[in-house]
C-alpha cells in the first residue's frame, strides 16, 4: 500500500492559501510538490528560459494576436501550457507519488488511477484580507487583485479543459480555508487521503 502511487492535484483560488496547504500536505506525506519553482526547473531541463515559462504560465492565450494551425499554435501561453501538461504526464508516468498545484492537473491526469482532486477556496473577504497583508496593499486593492487573478485562473482552466473552474463535482474534496487556515485544511486533506487509501485497500483486499 505504501508503494502505491497517489497523485494529489490541488486547484486553488488566489488568497485561499492553497500553495501553503499543498506544501504542508507534501511535508506530512513526504511527497514532492510541483508548483512554480518546480516548473522553473522543468524549463531549465528543457533548455527554455525560466522567465519565458513564468511569464506565460497559467495564462490563457490571447485570441487576437495569436493563431493555431494544424495543431500548431504560436501563442506562448499555449506552448507553455503544452510543455507543462506534458511534464505533468511525464512525471505521473514514472509511477512516483506527487502533489501538483494548479495547472489543470486534475484534468490532464484524469485517466490516471489513484488521482485525488482537491480544490481550495476561501471567502472573498478572507482572501482579500490575506492578500492585503501579503502584498501590503489596502483591502479594496487586494479585493481587486484577487478578483483579477481568479478570473485569469478560471479563464485558463476553462480554455484548456473546457470545464468550469472550481465547480464541486469536478473534484473529490473542496475545502474552504477561511476558518480553518493552513493547518486545518491540510488536516482535512490528510484525513481524506487516509480514508481514500483505506477504501482503495479494502477494494484491493476484496
Amino acid at each position, binding site marked *: 500500500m505504501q508503494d502505491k502511487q497517489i497523485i494529489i492535484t490541488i486547484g486553488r483560488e488566489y488568497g485561499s492559501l492553497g500553495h501553503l496547504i499543498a506544501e504542508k500536505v507534501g511535508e506530512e506525506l513526504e511527497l514532492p510538490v510541483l508548483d512554480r519553482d518546480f516548473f522553473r526547473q522543468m524549463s531549465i531541463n528543457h533548455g527554455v528560459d525560466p522567465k519565458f515559462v513564468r511569464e506565460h504560465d497559467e495564462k490563457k492565450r490571447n485570441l*487576437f494576436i495569436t493563431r493555431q*494551425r494544424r495543431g500548431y*499554435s504560436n501563442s506562448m501561453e499555449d*506552448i507553455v501550457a503544452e510543455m507543462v501538461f506534458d511534464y505533468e504526464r511525464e512525471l505521473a508516468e514514472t509511477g512516483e507519488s506527487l502533489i501538483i498545484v494548479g495547472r489543470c492537473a486534475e484534468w490532464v491526469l484524469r485517466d490516471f488511477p489513484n488521482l485525488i482532486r482537491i480544490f481550495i477556496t476561501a471567502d472573498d473577504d478572507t482572501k482579500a484580507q490575506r492578500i492585503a497583508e501579503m502584498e501590503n496593499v489596502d483591502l479594496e486593492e487586494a479585493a481587486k487583485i484577487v478578483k483579477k487573478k481568479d478570473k485569469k485562473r478560471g479563464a485558463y482552466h476553462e480554455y484548456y479543459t473546457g470545464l468550469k473552474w472550481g465547480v464541486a463535482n469536478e473534484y473529490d474534496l473542496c475545502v474552504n480555508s477561511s476558518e480553518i487556515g493552513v493547518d486545518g485544511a491540510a488536516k482535512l486533506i490528510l484525513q481524506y487521503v487516509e480514508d481514500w487509501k483505506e477504501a482503495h485497500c479494502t477494494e484491493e483486499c476484496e
Partner: protein
Amino acid sequence: MLAAKICAIVIFLLMFGAIITEVLERHITTLVAGLATMVVVFGICMHSVDAIIKTLNLKALVTLGFWYGGGEESFGINWATIIFIAGMTVMVEGMGHSGFFEWLCLKIAKLVNYKTVALLVCFMAMSAFLAMFIDSITVIMFLAAVTITLAKTLRFDPVPIVLAEIFCANLGGSATMCGDPPNIIIGTALGYSFFDFVTNTGAIAGIALIVVMLYFFIVMRKPLKQSELDRPADIVYPNPADCIKNKKGFIGSVIVFLTIVALLVTHSITELSVATIGVFATIITIINLLVSFGFDDVKVVLKKVDYKTLLFFVGLFVVVAGLEETGCLALVANFIGKVSGGNILVMIAIIIWLSAILSAFVDNIPFAATMVPVIQAMAASTGVPLETLAWTLALGTDIGGSATPIGASANVVGTSLIAKAGHPVGWGKYCKYNAPATVIVITICMLSLFVKYA
C-alpha cells in the same frame, strides 16, 4: 433583397470575426455560416431553391469541362480547388512519409559544408522553390524542424533563418497557381493556368526573391558568421541518408512529385484540369505507398490529410456565394471603381495594399475568395483587364501575410516550432525582420505591376 443583403453581410462578418478569434474551429465556423447562408439568405429571404443548387455547384462535378478541357463553373463551391488541395495534401504527406523533405534539407546542408550563411541562402531558396509546388505549412514544418536540429548541432540561433524561410515560403507560394490557397481559388475561379501564374506572379516573385534574399543576407549575416567561428571542432554531423525510411518509397515519391509538377506545368497544353491532377496525385501516391510500404501506411498517410481545411473551404465558398448572389460584392467593386476613378494605377495600388494589410492580420483565404467576384465585377464595370487585377490580388494576399506572426499559416507553424525549441518569437522580434521585408516586396510588386500592365 435588402433583407437578404443585410443577412449575407451579417453572416459574413460574424464568420470573419469567429475565424479571427478562433472561438470555434475554422471549419465549424464556415460550415455553420454556410448553412446559415443557405437557410436564411437563400431560403428565408430569397425563397430561391435555384440559388442553393447553384451554390452547391454539384453539377460541375459531372461535366466534362470540370475534368478536361477547361470551362468549369466558378460560382458557389469551387470543387476544383477542394479536390486539387486534397490531392496535393495526400502527395505531400506521402513524400513526408518517405523522408524526402528531411533528406533534401540535410543533403543541401551537407553540400554547403554546414556553413551557416550558406545555409541561410540555400534554405531561403529551397523554401521558395518547394512552396511553389507544395503548401507552405509543409515546407516550413520540415525546413524549420531541420534548421532547429542543425542549430542545436552547429550552435547557431535558428530564429533569423526560420523567419527568412517563412518569408520565402510565402513568397514562393505566390509564384504559382498551386503555391498558396488564394492562388488556387483565383486560378480555378477565373480559369488561369499554372503557366499564366508563373509568367506573371512568378516573374515578379522571382525579382522580389532576389531582393529579399539580399535583405536577409545583409540583416543576418554577422551573427551567423560569428556562430561559424564559435563552432566547436568535435561536431558529429547528421547523415542525410538516415532520413530515408524506405528507399523504394523514397524513389517512388520523388517520381510522383516530378510527375505532378510536369502535369501542372503542362496543364494548359494537356487541358487536364487541376481537379484531375489532384485526383491523379492521390491515386499515384496511394499506389506508391501500397507498393513500397503497405496498406497500413496508406491509412496512416490518409489520416494525416487535413480534412478540416477542405471543409473550411466548402463553408467559405457558400458564404461568399451568398454575398455575390445578393449583389453585395458588386457594391464593393463599384465603390473601389469610384474611388480609383477608373485609373488602373490607383486600382492596383488600392488592391495590393488593401489585400496585403488585411492579409497581415486576417486569414487571406476568405479574403481572396471574397475578392475574386469583386475584381470580376470591377473588370466588367471599368474595363480594366481582369488579369491585371487577379495578379495584383494574388501577390497582395500571398505576400502581405508575411508581415506578422499571424498573417499566414506558415508563420504560425514556424514560430510555434522555434518557440517549442526554446526560442520564443513574439510580435516585436518577428516584425523586426519580416515586416520591413514585406513592405519592400509589396512595393517591388506594385512597381512591377505598374511597369508591366499600366
